[in-house]
């Protein structure tokens, strides 16, 4: 079955440093989504990438979708304490509108103030 892996599993950074998490799918995706889960919380949608090679920015967050539509990355510039949480990518293989998410293993980000 489809597998989605993320590295690193954990990342501890000083506040102000940059952070990157990488996501790799075993199969080609229709699109990829990114979610953030705060400790004790539920996944919250951040963004969707659809096109091969697509790059999207949200303030300090930059998301990329690989040319082969099998990998993706999330980069945060100048981390802040509010960035703490686990970042999950979720691969989607569309099936006539039924968007089943296959979540990656997640990267837990902690910030050292």
């Amino acid at each position, binding site marked *: 079955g489809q597998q989605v892996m993320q590295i690193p599993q954990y990342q501890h950074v000083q506040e102000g440093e940059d952070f990157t998490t990488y996501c790799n799918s075993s199969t080609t995706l229709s699109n990829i989504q990114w979610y953030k889960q705060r400790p004790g919380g539920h996944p919250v949608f951040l963004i969707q990438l659809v096109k091969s090679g697509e790059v999207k920015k949200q303030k300090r967050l930059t998301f990329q979708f690989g040319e082969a539509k099998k990998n993706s990355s999330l980069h945060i510039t100048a981390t802040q304490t509010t960035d703490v949480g686990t970042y999950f990518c979720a691969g989607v293989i569309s*099936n006539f509108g039924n968007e089943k998410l296959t979540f990656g293993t997640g990267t837990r980000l902690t910030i050292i103030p």
Partner: protein
Amino acid sequence: EPEVTQTPSHQVTQMGQEVILRCVPISNHLYFYWYRQILGQKVEFLVSFYNNEISEKSEIFDDQFSVERPDGSNFTLKIRSTKLEDSAMYFCASYMRYEQFFGPGTRLTVL
């Protein structure tokens, strides 16, 4: 802003007992999902539901699990005979366009 709600927030049950987890998806959404997350692990897909029937289910979703939309608003997940390994956070989600909206989850503890 509309949101997905789930009840109860925490359910404790004895092994072998039946539990029903409840969700109220966002009203104009058409696709509904259940996911589970074992503590410290990734979120796992259980089942998707559209037009009053299951559209896809994972290998986790065996005969012990069932879903229902008993009325126009509620979406339930039933576990017939709970096992210790069913202890997890269960998230309901509803889908519109490309975004899935997750509920706050129900923490199920099986003793």
